[in-house]
Structures are given as C-alpha cells and as structure tokens.
C-alpha cells in the first residue's frame, strides 16, 4: 500500500514540474507577444530606480520598466528558439534517418558534415553566419537554426541503426516490404519520441546562443527588446553599481533555459527510465 503511494508520487511530481514549467514559459510568451511597447515607454523622470514596489525589477537608463522589457525580450527569445530548433531538428531528422537508412556514401557524407560543423567553435560559426547575413534578426535566426543539428543528427542516426538491426525489422525486409514502408511502419514510430525529446532539449541551447550572439552585437539590434541587448546595455552601468540591470534579466533567461532542459530530461526519464541522471 505504502509503496504504491510513493510510486504514484514520483510520477506525479514529474508531471507537476512539467506543467508548472510549461505554464511559466507559455505565460511569458503570451504576455510578451501581447504586450504594448508603450508599457515600458521611456520616462526620464524615473531612470535608474532600484527594484521596488512600483518597478519590481527596477528601471534602466531611460526609465523603462525592466520587468516588462525582460518579459518582452524573453518572449522574442522563445519565439526565435522555437523556430530555430524546429528547423534544426528537421535537418537532423532528415539527415540522421537518411544516413542510417541509405548508408554507404551518404552516411559518410553526413558524418563528415557533422564533423565539419563541430570542427569550429559553435559561437564562431554562429558569428560567421550572422555576419554573412548582415547581422540582425535574420542573421541570428538563420545562424541558430543552421548550427544546432549535428548532435541530434548523431542521436537519430544511432537510434535508426539500432532499430534497423532488430530482428522484427529484418524480418519485415525479408517479407518484401519496401524501404519506405519499413521506414514508415517500424522505424519512424520508434525514432519519433527520441526525436521529440531531442527537439525540446535543443530549445535551451538555441535560446542561450541567441542571447550570446545578440550580446556580442551580432544579433537583434539595440532597438529590439531582447535579453542579449538588455544585458549588453547593463554592462555600461555595472561599473556604477546598477547591479539589478544584469541580475534579473539573467535570472529570467536562466529560468527559461533550465525549465526547458528540465522538461526534456523528465520526458526522457518517463520514456526510458534507465537513461540520463540515474
């Protein structure tokens, strides 16, 4: 009896975490998207206010409310992160499945591309792509979308190879089913969960890289609300002790990254209890 309650708890705990994480992220997203930019309008009379009742996160050098700017910025980051990881994951799915199913030259080629992409520091590659596109929103978006596929490709490829070697798949081939049929009926259903978990685990990386590249000045422009921009600005005022300009936006970013990560890891544990952390 007692043990039954504990079992139930582990699972429910994970589900509750996941729902809370989702509510936080969805809340930020919706709030940010619907927010009127006037809400954090310039007001020089209240510049550099420390965090307090009126402005929970304080105000910046133009008297804008930091909480609202952060929410708006984070929602942009989430949008970019979602789009970029979806694109990256499609590349990974296509490349990984193709490499494993076709094999031979294509397999070596995909592996070679993965090695190539990983041969340069990720940030440098991002910076070069953003540079090629003349920086700005387009630069970050394409950069982040085009550089996050290698690891997931490896995972998908390994998974497909493993399933393909299973006996029932071998039997399906011998029964005269075509490659496409086998791929659709046997391989895809097994790869899909691994892939979906992979996509969710891509989000945090994508968001983090978007913020990093924006912080360095290669991403969203200074006029756009973005966590990277906010933190980059805060650098100028840190020497004069305006610590709140850096602390809170970073915490919000960190929370978003950790929550996405958490959701991914939890799903992984639910799917395959032997994997990951214990």
């Amino acid at each position, binding site marked *: 009896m007692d043990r039954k309650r504990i079992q139930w708890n582990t699972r429910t705990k994970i589900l509750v975490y996941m729902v809370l994480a989702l509510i936080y992220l969805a809340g930020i997203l919706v709030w940010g998207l619907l927010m009127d930019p006037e809400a954090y309008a310039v007001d020089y009379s209240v510049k550099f206010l420390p965090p307090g009742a009126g402005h929970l996160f304080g105000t910046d050098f133009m008297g804008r409310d930091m909480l609202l700017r952060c929410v708006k910025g984070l929602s942009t980051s989430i949008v970019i992160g979602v789009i970029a990881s979806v694109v990256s994951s499609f590349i990974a799915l296509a490349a990984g499945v193709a490499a494993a199913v076709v094999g031979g030259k294509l397999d070596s080629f995909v592996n*070679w591309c993965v*090695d*190539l992409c*990983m*041969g*340069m*520091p*990720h*940030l*440098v590659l991002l*910076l*070069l*792509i*953003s*540079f*090629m*596109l*003349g*920086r700005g929103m387009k630069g970050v978006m394409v950069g982040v979308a085009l550089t996050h596929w290698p690891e997931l490709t490896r995972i998908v490829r390994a998974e497909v190879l493993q399933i393909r070697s299973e006996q029932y798949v071998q039997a399906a081939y011998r029964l005269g089913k075509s490659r496409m049929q086998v791929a659709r009926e046997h391989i895809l259903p097994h790869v899909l969960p691994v892939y979906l978990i992979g996509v969710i685990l891509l989000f*945090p990386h994508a968001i*983090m890289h978007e*913020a*990093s590249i924006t*912080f*360095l*000045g*290669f991403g969203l422009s200074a006029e756009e609300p973005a966590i990277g921009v906010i*933190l980059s600005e*805060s*650098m100028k005022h*840190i*020497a*004069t*002790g305006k*610590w709140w300009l*850096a*602390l809170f936006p*970073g915490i919000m*970013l*960190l929370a978003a*990254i*950790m929550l996405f*990560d958490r959701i991914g890891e939890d799903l992984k544990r639910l799917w395959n209890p032997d994997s990951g*952390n*214990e």
Partner: protein
Amino acid sequence: MSRSRYIAGTVFRMLTLLAAVSVLSFVLVTSSPIDPLTAYIGTNSTLSQEARDEITEHWGLDDPPVERFTAWAGNFLKGDWGTSIAFKKPVKTVIKERFSYSVVLMLIAWTFSGVLGFLAGIFAAVRKGSLWDKAIKVFCLALQSAPTFWVGLLVLSLFAVQLGWFPIGLAAPMGKLAQDVTLEDRIWHLVLPSLTLGVLGISKITLYTRQKLIEIMDSGFILFAKARGEDTAQLVLRHGIRNIALPAVTVQFAAFSELFGGIALAESVFSYPGIGSALTTAGLSGDVPLLLGIAVFSAVFVFTGNLIANILYGLLDPRIKEGRADG
C-alpha cells in the same frame, strides 16, 4: 605499427576537415553584404573613386570567388594572412598578440575547471544519492544553463564593483605603459575572467566524471574486486580513477571548442584584450581578413584539442597501445 597508423589516420582526417572549414569560412565571410571597402574607409569618406578602385583592385574584390579563394589560401599557406582592417596590422601579428593574452586565461580556467570538476565528480559519484551529490548536481545543472556573459557580469558586479577586490576590466591598469606592467598587475586582472570561464567549464566535466564513475562502479570488475575484499576507497582509487581518467581528460580536451566560445564572451565582459574580443571587433567592423584568420585559427585550436585527446588514447590506453587496432 598500428599506433602510428592510428595517429596518421587521425591527422589526415583532421587536415581534410580543416581544409573544408577554411572553404566554409571563406564562403560565409565573403558573401556578406557588409562591404569590406566601406568598413575600411568608413561610410562618409571623401576618398576619390580612383583610390577606391585601387583598393578594390589590390584586394581583388572583383575577382571570381574561386580565384579569390585560391589566392587567399595560397597566401595563407605561405604565411601571409593579410592585413587587419580594424587593427591596421598584419592579421598574424594581431592573432599572435591577442592569443598570448588569451592563452594564459584559457590555461588557468581549463586546468582549474578540469582538476576541480574531476574531483567533484568523483566525490559526487562515491556519495551518490547523498545531499552532497544532489547539491553538486543541481549546482552543475544551473551553471550549465547559465550564459557565460551573464555569470561574468555578476562576478564583475559583485567582486569588482560592490566589493572592490579586483579591477573592473582590461589586462593591466589603465594608462600604465606596457613596460611598467608588473606580473602582479597581470595576475590581478586575470582572476575574475578566469574564474568566470573556469566556473562555467566545471559543470560538464563534473557531471561527466560523476556519471561515468557511477557506471564503472556498477561494472563486473568492480564487483569482483569488492568480492576480493576491497572497500569503497580502494575500489575508487585502484580501479575507478584508472578507468575514468582517460575519458575524462578526453572530454576536457574536447571542450576546447566551448572554451573558445566562452572566451569571446568573457573577454567582451571584462574588456580583456584577447583573441575573443578581437573576433568580436573583427565581426563588428567588417574586418574580413582578421575574421577569416581567427575563424581558421579557432578551427585549428579545436582540432588540436581533439588531436591531443586522440594521441593520448593511443599512448595511454593499453588496448590500443599493445594490440589489436580494433581494441
């Protein structure tokens, strides 16, 4: 010999990848809409059209791409990496100067995170499930998700601004002449940036060591050693460390890639004049030759890390060293 063949194969593979990386970088950088000429002379320059044409001609900006690449690659291999637009110095000189600053920073951070992370990972694995283990795990997971530049900002804000223990930025006191800068000055300015980089590098190696050691402690040979009377300390010291050391070192060398990315961000926060901030400057000012130079250099840096890891395996793992190549 199988060992030299193994190393030669690795080197060859890396060289071909390196060549491909240069091609890729070249294509990316030269197809940018940011006009290098405008970047060089500024948007409201009064330079005459003839002078502009001359520069275009000199740089070969109007040549077909393949020709431009072969010209650039040929010069690059001969040791002529072009001239940096932003620093008005040969690219090679800029990289050499800047990297000499960065390498100290990276070495400190890398060693610090490697040693401490390895020990913390072992500690957590041995105490698996305890409060210590959980604390270490949560700490690492949080750090893993924390952007480098933000941690840098916090460190700067706390230790330099609020507490005033360390200087706010740069590699030496502002206004001090280069020959007057003492070793103490340099160290003083290195503390915060290397702390930032090191703290961030720690989580990966800690979590890896922990996970790997837990796996090893479940393996048959540990079981047998236990059945022969070894206690936990002996198991870890005699067998655990022996079996995780090599993979952990490999992971640490493979982290060269993230280290380089981290340095670009950390140096930007601490205005540290290393290769990372040179990269940002090059990108922001449209300095194509320097950008290319640093991109290729960064790839060489990453490959060197992988190569060292591979060679270490070949030298130290008896399964590769003393026998079957398929070990």
